C-alpha cells in the first residue's frame, strides 16, 4: 500500500496538471471577456457544467473515459496513438449497421470493438515490422474512415425520411436507460434517467484497466516495457507482443466508445458526423490531465464533460460560442505539453513520456 508520504508526494506531483488546467481556464475566461461576457461567472458555469445538461455530460464522460484510455494505454509503452478519432466513427457506423437490422445490442458491442482492435493491431504491426510511425498511420486511417463514413451516412445508410441522418437503430438494440422519474435522495432531487447505463460500462472498463495495470504480473511487465524496454527483453518479456496488444486494446476501446455512443445515446449518426467526432482527440487531453492513470482518467473525463455541458449553457447564458470549451481543452493540452517539454530540457524527471515522444525522442 502506498504510504501517506508517498500519497503526499503524488499529490504534490500533480502541480503541472493543476497549472495547466488553470491556464486553460484562464484562456477560456479571457475569450469570454473578449466577447463581452462575464469571465468569472463563465468559469463557474464551465467547471460546474454538469448540472446544465447532465445527459450530454454523462454520455460524453462515458465516451471520454474510453478514448482517454485508448490514448493512455499505448502511451505507457511509448506509442503515440491518435487513431481513436477514426475508430470511434467506425464503431458508431458498425453500431448503426447492426443495430438497425438485429434487435439486440450484443452484436454491435462485440463486433465494433473487435473490428477496431484489428485496426489497432494493424497499426502496431506497421510500426513493429516496417517501422511506420504510428502517428502518421493513425492520422491517415482517421481520414480514410472519416471520408468513407461521410459517404456511408449520406448514401447506403441514409434514412429516406430524414435526409439529415442515418437510419435509426431498432429499439431493442438500444442500451437501456434508467427510469426517468425524479427521485428524492437525502433531500436532493435526482434524475436518474440522465445517467446513461453505458457510463457503468466505461467505469468498469477503467477499473479493470487500473487493476490489470497495477495489481497483476502481466501489468507489471507491461509497465516495464515502457520504463526499460531492454530490461523487459532481458527478462523474457515479448516486447513486440505487448506493444501489439496495447494498440489492439486501445483500438478496441475506441470502437466500443463509438458503439456505446450510438447504442446508448443518439441511436443514429448525422450526415456531418458531428455526433461521433471530436471524442477521440479530446481523449488525448483527458489522458494527459488524468496523468495516464485509469482512475485519473475517470476524474478528468468528468471535468472535460462538464466543460462540454457548461459551454453549451454558456452559449445561452452569455451568448458566447460553445467553442470556448474546445479552446479551454486545447489550451490545457498545450500547457501540459509545454510543461513536459520544459521538464525535458530543465530536469531529468520523465514524468511525461508524451513530450519525449512529441519531440521525436524515442
Amino acid at each position, binding site marked *: 500500500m502506498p504510504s501517506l*508520504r508517498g500519497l503526499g*508526494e503524488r499529490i504534490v506531483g500533480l502541480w503541472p496538471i493543476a497549472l495547466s488546467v488553470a491556464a486553460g481556464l484562464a484562456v477560456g475566461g479571457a475569450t469570454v471577456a473578449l466577447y463581452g461576457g462575464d469571465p468569472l461567472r463563465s468559469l463557474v458555469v464551465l467547471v460546474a457544467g454538469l448540472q446544465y445538461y447532465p445527459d450530454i455530460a454523462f454520455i460524453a464522460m462515458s465516451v471520454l473515459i474510453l478514448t482517454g484510455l485508448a490514448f493512455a494505454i499505448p502511451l505507457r509503452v511509448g506509442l503515440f496513438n491518435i487513431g481513436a478519432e477514426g475508430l470511434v466513427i467506425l464503431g458508431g457506423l458498425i453500431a448503426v449497421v447492426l443495430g438497425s437490422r438485429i434487435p439486440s445490442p450484443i452484436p454491435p458491442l462485440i463486433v465494433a470493438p473487435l473490428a477496431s482492435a484489428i485496426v489497432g493491431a494493424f497499426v502496431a504491426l506497421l510500426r513493429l515490422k516496417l517501422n511506420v510511425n504510428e502517428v502518421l498511420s493513425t492520422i491517415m486511417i482517421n481520414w480514410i474512415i472519416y471520408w468513407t463514413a461521410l459517404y456511408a451516412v449520406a448514401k447506403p445508410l441514409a434514412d429516406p425520411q430524414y435526409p439529415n441522418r442515418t437510419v435509426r437503430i431498432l429499439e431493442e438494440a438500444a442500451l437501456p436507460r434508467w427510469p426517468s422519474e425524479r427521485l428524492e435522495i437525502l433531500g436532493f432531487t435526482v434524475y436518474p434517467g440522465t445517467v446513461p447505463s453505458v457510463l457503468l460500462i466505461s467505469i468498469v472498463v477503467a477499473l479493470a484497466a487500473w487493476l490489470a495495470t497495477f495489481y497483476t504480473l502481466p501489468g507489471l*511487465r507491461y509497465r516495464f516495457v515502457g520504463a526499460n524496454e531492454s530490461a523487459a*527483453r532481458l527478462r*523474457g518479456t515479448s516486447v513486440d507482443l505487448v506493444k501489439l496488444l496495447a494498440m489492439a486494446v486501445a483500438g478496441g476501446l475506441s470502437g466500443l466508445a463509438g458503439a456505446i455512443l450510438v447504442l446508448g445515446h443518439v441511436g443514429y449518426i448525422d450526415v456531418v458526423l458531428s455526433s461521433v467526432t471530436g471524442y477521440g482527440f479530446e481523449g488525448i487531453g483527458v489522458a494527459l490531465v488524468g496523468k495516464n492513470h485509469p482512475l485519473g482518467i475517470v476524474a478528468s473525463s468528468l471535468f472535460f464533460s462538464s466543460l462540454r455541458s457548461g459551454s453549451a449553457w454558456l452559449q445561452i447564458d452569455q451568448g458566447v460560442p460553445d467553442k470556448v470549451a474546445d479552446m479551454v481543452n486545447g489550451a490545457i493540452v498545450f500547457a501540459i505539453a509545454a510543461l513536459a517539454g520544459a521538464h525535458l530540457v530543465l530536469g531529468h524527471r520523465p514524468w511525461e513520456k508524451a513530450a519525449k515522444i512529441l519531440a521525436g525522442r524515442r
Partner: protein
Amino acid sequence: MATTPLVSMRGISKVYPDGVKALENVDFDLYPGEVHSLLGENGAGKTTLMRILYGEIRPSSGKIIVEDREVKWSGPWDAIRAGIAMVYQHFRLVETLTVEENLLIYLSSLGLNRAEARSRVEEAMERLGLEVPLVARVGDLPMGVRQRVEILKAISGGAKVLILDEPTSNLTPLEVEALFSVVERLKSLGVSVVYITHKLWEVTRISDRITVLRRGRVVATLKNDGVSEEELARLMVGELAEQGGRGARRKPGKAALTVRNLRVLVDGVERLKGVSLTVREGEILGVAGVAGNGQEELVAAILGLLKPVEGEVLLWGKPVRSPRDFYKLGGGIIPGDRSQILAAEMSVGENAAFIFYTGSRKIALTPGEVEALYREIKDRFHLVAPGPDAPVGRLSGGNQQKVVVGSEVLRGPKLLVAVNPTQGLDIATTRFVRGLLSDLASQGVAVLLVSADLDEVLELSDRVVVMSGGRITGELARGDATPEKVGVLMGA
C-alpha cells in the same frame, strides 16, 4: 598545494524528502590541482555530497564557498558556469549523435557559438593530450572513449573542478590506466578532481588526499602518504568481519550449462569465434579476460538474446533459443550493468517483483506480496532503502545492486550467470556477495562468473577459462591459476 581551498563545503547536511538522512554536518575542502578521493560504504553519502556541490540537489543546511564567495546554486548550470562539472557512471551523452554534436550542444548552452566552441574543444584536446573521434556516433564508441568525451566536454566548458563518480566501473584495465594519466594531466593543469570509488588500490595510487564518509559523517580526511588499504577499509566500516572463506564444495555434478562451438556475429563482425565451455552443478567457472573480448556477447548468447550463426547453448541438455527458455530451464542472471535490468522510476518493490517473478505464470500481484518480497530482500541482503514504494533510482548504487542480486538469488536459479556481480559494492557487501556465490555453489548451483576483476575470479572459481579476441585461450584449474598464467593467456 595552494593554501586556500578552491571549494569549501561547510556543515553540509542533507535530509531527503522521504526522511533519509544522507549527510550530517559534513566539511569538505578541495584545493586547486589536487585529486581528492571520497571513500565510504554503499549509501555513505558520497554521491549525495557531490550532487550538492554540482547543484543538482540542495543541502538541507550548510554552505558552499567557491573561491572565497558563498554560492547558492539553483541548478547544475550554475555550478557548471562556476567551473564545476560532474561525470556520472552512466554517461549523459546522446548516443545517436556524434561526439562533436554532443560537445556543441553542451557548449552552446553555455553561450558559445559554433566557432568558439570548436576552438575551445581543440584547445582542450591539446591541453589534455586527448584524442577523441569527433565524427563518430557516441553509441558506437567503447565506454572508455565515451568517458573521455565527457571529460573533454567538461574541460572545454571551462571546468576547474571535475567530479568523477565511480569512473572505473565500466572500464577495461587499459582504459583505467589511460584514465589515470588523464587525471595526472588534469592535475598538472591545475584542475581539481574529486574521485569517488570503492577500489582502494585506485585511491592509494592517484589521490593527494582522502576523505572517508561513514553513514553521512566524515570520519577522517587524510593525506595519501603511506596509508594502507587495510587502514582505509577500517575507517570505512569500523570493524571488518573476517573473510568468509569458501564453503566446502561437493564434487561437481551433472553438466548444467554447455556451450558448444559458439560463433556469433554482431553487425557482421565475428565476436565469438567458436567458444565452448561447460559449467557443472556445484562449481564456479570463472571467465577471466579484459572486458570487450567477447564476454558480453557470450552472456547474451547464453541468454538467447543473440542468435549464434553456429553452435548451441544447452541447459541440462535442452537448447536455449530465447531468454524465456533460459529462465524456464532454471537459468538466472546478474547482469553487468544495473541499468540493463532496473527501471529507475519504478519502485524498489516493483523492480524486485519483476525480477523475482520472471517466467512465472502468476496473474494477480498484490501489494502484500510485493512488500513481503521486499522485506525478505531487506533482511537477507541488508538492503538499505526507505521502503518498497521508493523509486529504485533513489537508492545508492550499491543498494540497487543488492536489489538485483537479492531478487535473482531468491528466485532460486539452478544456474547463475554473474557478470561483475560486485561492481559498485563496498568492501563488506562485496564480501557478502562473494560468500553468497560460494554458498550457492556449495548448495549445488552451477555458477558462471564473468568478471573483469581478476582477483575476484581467482578467489572464487573452481576452474578459470580465459577469453581473448572472442576465443577461449586456455583453461586453468584452481590452484594452478595464477595472475601470471592468466595474464599470459589474456594476451594470447
